[in-house]
């Protein structure tokens, strides 16, 4: 087909996206080299001072980054295992199949922050139902939101509730699109359900699994909404993730220049680590 038309299709979208994004990115890089804060709100040039500060004198950022890695990797692994199990269970005929499929999808349709508002009352340490029910069977109240270690698990519980459905959806859609022949062959050979899963289903699902895990990791790396409402990063900094820390520096303390430094570094780390994870996963899951 000829030359001109293809650009008419591609360019509107491409240029709108580039048009909206190019300014923020260049601006962030420039801002990261300035000392813009609430005292001197101007675009001066202080070289790489901010970057030196970040790499030598800001353990809080790196802690928040490792915390984020821990939270997102844990939640995505849990979501993958549970989501895959659920997808396998409602893949073939079971009673009320469509009812369960709808139920399993519902959490991803609900707004995370709004559900977190409800979760906050749910995990309330004296007036919430969880501690009350646990109390009935003789378990002492658990400090869901004010204990630094348990608060992390509360965040994980909420994240798993919220986003397992997305994993479930991607994996179920994948399962439903698999070819029938390998399963027939396995049935003729008399393979047990377990062997069928290990030798047929799982290898066939590997590419889809990788796709789903990476998509979820990308989304999970942005954990912020839940933390913001549930614990506000607390107690102390126990649940503070990178985004939240950048938010505090930039839009609460108005150290815009330094926040831009953090943002840009964070973005670069994200791109590099997600690329590495994608490569490693592909190697691990597709062996032959």
């Amino acid at each position: 087909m000829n030359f001109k038309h293809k650009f008419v299709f591609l360019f509107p979208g491409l240029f709108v996206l580039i048009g909206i994004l190019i300014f923020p990115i260049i601006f962030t890089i420039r801002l990261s080299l300035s000392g813009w804060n609430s005292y001197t709100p101007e675009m001066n040039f202080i070289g790489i001072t901010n970057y030196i500060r970040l790499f030598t004198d800001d353990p809080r950022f790196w802690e928040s980054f490792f915390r984020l890695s821990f939270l997102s990797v844990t939640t995505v692994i849990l979501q993958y295992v549970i989501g895959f199990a659920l997808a396998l269970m409602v893949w073939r005929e079971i009673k009320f199949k469509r009812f369960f499929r709808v139920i399993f999808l519902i959490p991803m349709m609900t707004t995370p922050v709004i559900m977190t508002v409800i979760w906050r009352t749910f995990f309330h340490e004296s007036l919430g139902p969880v501690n009350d029910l646990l109390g009935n069977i003789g378990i002492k109240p658990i400090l869901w939101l004010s204990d630094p270690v348990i608060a992390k698990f509360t965040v994980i519980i909420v994240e798993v509730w919220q986003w397992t459905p997305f994993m479930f959806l991607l994996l179920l859609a994948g399962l439903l699109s698999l070819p029938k022949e390998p399963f027939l062959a396995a049935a003729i050979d008399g393979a047990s359900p377990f062997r069928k899963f290990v030798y047929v289903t799982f290898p066939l699902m590997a590419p889809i699994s990788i796709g789903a895990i990476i998509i979820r990791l990308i989304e999970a790396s942005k954990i912020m909404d839940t933390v913001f409402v549930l614990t506000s990063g607390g107690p102390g900094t126990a649940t503070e993730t990178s985004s939240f820390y950048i938010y505090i520096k930039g839009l609460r303390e108005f150290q815009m220049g330094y926040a831009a430094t953090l943002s840009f570094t964070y973005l670069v780390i994200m791109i590099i680590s997600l690329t590495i994870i994608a490569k490693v996963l592909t190697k691990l899951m597709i062996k032959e």
Partner: protein
Amino acid sequence: MHKLYTFLKYTFITLWTVFIVAPFLWAISTSFKDFQSVNSKVTYIPWLDFEPTLEGWRVLVKSPARGGVDIVEPYFNSIFVTCTASLISIILGTLAAYALSRFTFKAGFVRNNDITFFFISQRIMPPIVLSIPFFIFLSTIGLLDSLLGLVVVYIVLLMPIAVWIMVDFFNRVPKELDETALIDGCNPYQAFYKVVLPNSIPGLIVAGMFCIIFGWIDFFFAFILTFTEVQLLPVKVVALNSSITPWWSLSASALISVAPLIIVAFVVERYLSKGNLSGALK
């Protein structure tokens, strides 16, 4: 062995269903409570544990001056921003996806896949990275705290999703379809508009639903880029949460805010069961 497996399966499904439904049940129950039944001890079942009242729901329709929670305006703001941004993203995204699926692009080392990746990779961008420059940018051109400013930002969030789903979808629409149309004398635009597009309705619906979901549930941009003039639903509910709004009206407003998209779950399931989604999401 088989019986045990079936038993475990249904146990797991039941437990998970309880886990999913629990916060909703709790919120529904709480929305009918009053001061006494929230603060004295934990109560669950209306009439049995406590006397239900409609106070929590009544507050939603009252004006703020009379102690109400103004949720109607944020509701319409959210609908407007989500729908406008989704529509623009779908139109631009579908056009771009069609181009990437049908034509070959070559510019230096850049190929089709790289352009597709560029679109989709915008999802990697953490919202916080964009929010600071957008904050300054929008305040310079006077669009801070406005619906239009939000629509612009949401296009960045949603167009990658539209491109992601539509490229895969068009790849599965047979090429012969447009080729026949071209031989029959259509120009490329007519071929796209009259032949390819009508055959892509399922893909468009799936892409549309995903745009609406991810537009509707966004909190962060709305939170940073708007203050008082314009409020979106999630921001409003979180603002209620941080002020001293009682639990019953908080629960009622939360429930009413998440209700519309639950319908989407039914639509998604329908497409899933009909097999239309399988290809679209692969």
